[in-house]
Every structure is written in structure tokens, then in C-alpha cells.
């Protein structure tokens, strides 16, 4: 089981994500944004949180044009798995791998606290360790986490059961309280909250562990 974690200038959750993958049994390779290819045989790509390129232009916009993001897009087009967390979610929307965009928080403030997340679907490799309707405690830490998609896109996300998580109490103005969404084939998850920051008792919560454990179940040798 192999995971690759992408590192941009300004990433700051890359090591946390690597530790979470490692604890779940993955061997993890860190991949620099200037690399044009992912390591051979990678099962899942993690696009971490942080402030890639200082959030210049728009959050994730410059990172989305980096050489490694072309490789990540090809990986997902081939049916490969990926998870984008916080800035990583912004990068995945900017590349077009996931629909919609993340706007400035409606209250204009950077928000850093643990919030309740409602699991909307357990039908994905990421969420099958939860039950739909579960409320889990996961930290958020973002200034631009206000999910926006047009009506047509929102309707499609709902019809196809692709909303993975919603906020129990909307902190940032996201449409329909959306905190995380899945790709068409359910193999790419983008979410603003940080499951890798709730994956060790030292973090103050371990509700994120089930996500990584479920992923390891998908890739574990039979």
C-alpha cells in the first residue's frame, strides 16, 4: 500500500498527512511539486493543507498549474484515488478534478476550531468506516472554505450521493453546509476539515482515524 503526499512551497500539513497514512499502514513518499511524475505504483495521492504559493491569485490556483498536478490529474483520470484536504481541496477544485470552488468565509474571518461534521454517505473508500448520519468531530482551519457550486452542479452532487460531509453548524457560508465532496467515480475526496489532525489521542480527538483505516482496507493485500 503506497501513498504519495504532494509538497508545495507553503504546504504545512504535509507531514501530518504522511503520519496519518503511515499509521494506517501505508508506505508514504513525499513528492515535490516540480516533479512531473508520481512514483510508480502509488495507490493514493494526498494533497495536503497549507498555503501553497502563499495563496497568491486565488487559493490553490498556482499550485494547480504545477507539473505534479498534471500527473495527479492523469492519475485520477486513470481511476486512481486521491484526497485533498483544506488547501488540497482548493487545489483539486482549481485543477477541475473536483467541481465548484472555495470562496472567502462568509464571516471574513479565519476559523480554527473543531467542528461537528455530519457523514452524508458511507458509500466511498474514504467514508465506509462511518455510518451515514454519524456526527464526527474534526478540526477546521481555513479562511477560504466557503464551498460554492452552481445550482446544476449542486443538484448533480446530491443526485449522485457525492456529498461526503456537511457541517452540523455551518461555520463559513458553504452552500448546503457542504464540507467535503466526492468525484464522479467516488475515488477522489476533497474536504476542508482536517481528518489528519484528529488521528491521534494527542490531537485531542481521533474521529479522523476511521477515514485512513477505511482507505487501508481498500488497498490491503487480500
Amino acid at each position, binding site marked *: 500500500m503506497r501513498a504519495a503526499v504532494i509538497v508545495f512551497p507553503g504546504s504545512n500539513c504535509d507531514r501530518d498527512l504522511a503520519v496519518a497514512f503511515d499509521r494506517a499502514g501505508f508506505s508514504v513518499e513525499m513528492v515535490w511539486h516540480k516533479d512531473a511524475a508520481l512514483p510508480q505504483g502509488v495507490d493514493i495521492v494526498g494533497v495536503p493543507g497549507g498555503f501553497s504559493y502563499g495563496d497568491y491569485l486565488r487559493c490553490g490556483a498556482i499550485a494547480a498549474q504545477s507539473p505534479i498536478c498534471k500527473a495527479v490529474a492523469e492519475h485520477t483520470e486513470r481511476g486512481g484515488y486521491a484526497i485533498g484536504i483544506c488547501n488540497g481541496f482548493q487545489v483539486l477544485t482549481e485543477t477541475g478534478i473536483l*467541481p465548484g470552488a472555495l470562496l472567502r468565509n462568509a464571516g471574513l474571518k479565519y476559523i480554527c476550531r473543531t467542528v461537528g461534521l455530519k457523514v452524508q454517505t458511507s458509500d466511498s473508500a474514504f467514508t465506509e468506516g462511518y455510518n451515514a448520519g454519524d456526527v464526527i468531530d474534526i478540526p477546521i482551519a481555513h479562511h477560504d472554505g466557503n464551498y460554492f457550486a452552481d445550482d446544476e452542479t449542486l443538484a448533480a452532487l446530491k443526485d449522485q450521493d457525492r456529498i461526503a460531509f456537511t457541517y452540523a453548524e455551518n461555520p463559513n457560508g458553504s452552500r448546503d453546509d457542504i464540507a467535503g465532496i466526492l468525484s464522479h467515480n467516488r475515488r477522489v475526496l476533497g474536504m476542508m476539515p482536517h481528518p489528519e489532525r484528529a488521528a491521534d489521542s494527542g490531537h485531542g480527538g481521533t474521529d479522523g482515524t476511521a477515514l485512513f483505516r477505511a482507505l487501508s482496507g481498500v488497498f490491503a493485500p487480500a
Partner: protein
Amino acid sequence: MKARVHVMLKNGVLDPQGEAVRHALGAMGFDQVEGVRQGKVIDLELAEGATEADVTAMCEKLLANTVIERFEIELV
């Protein structure tokens, strides 16, 4: 040649920064302001032979996120 690109949030997309500016103006007594939308202006210095179509491609691929933003190009 130079191009000036205006990038604005699309109508219907909430602009909390513009809204905060509107509130501040109102609090200052400028109650004639009914709405504020805030955007970006990007100036490009272009090499000889660059066309408006080139700038349009730049806007679509990077300078604007057309999911949430619209852009206008001014050649100067």
C-alpha cells in the same frame, strides 16, 4: 502592448469582502451606497505580437476561475 484584466465575482456569488466594505461605508455615513462588489485588476505587459485571444486563454486557464469569476480584457 499592455492588457488590463478585470476579474470580478459573478453576479449571484456572495462577495463577503464587498459586503463588509458596504457596511463600513454605511457606518461612516455614506448611506447612498447600496451595494459594493470587490474585484481584482491585473496589468499584463505583453510582447510584440500577443493577441487578445492569448489574453483570453490566460484568463480562462489561470487569471480567473470561471466557476465563480467573470473577466473583462482591456487592451491599452
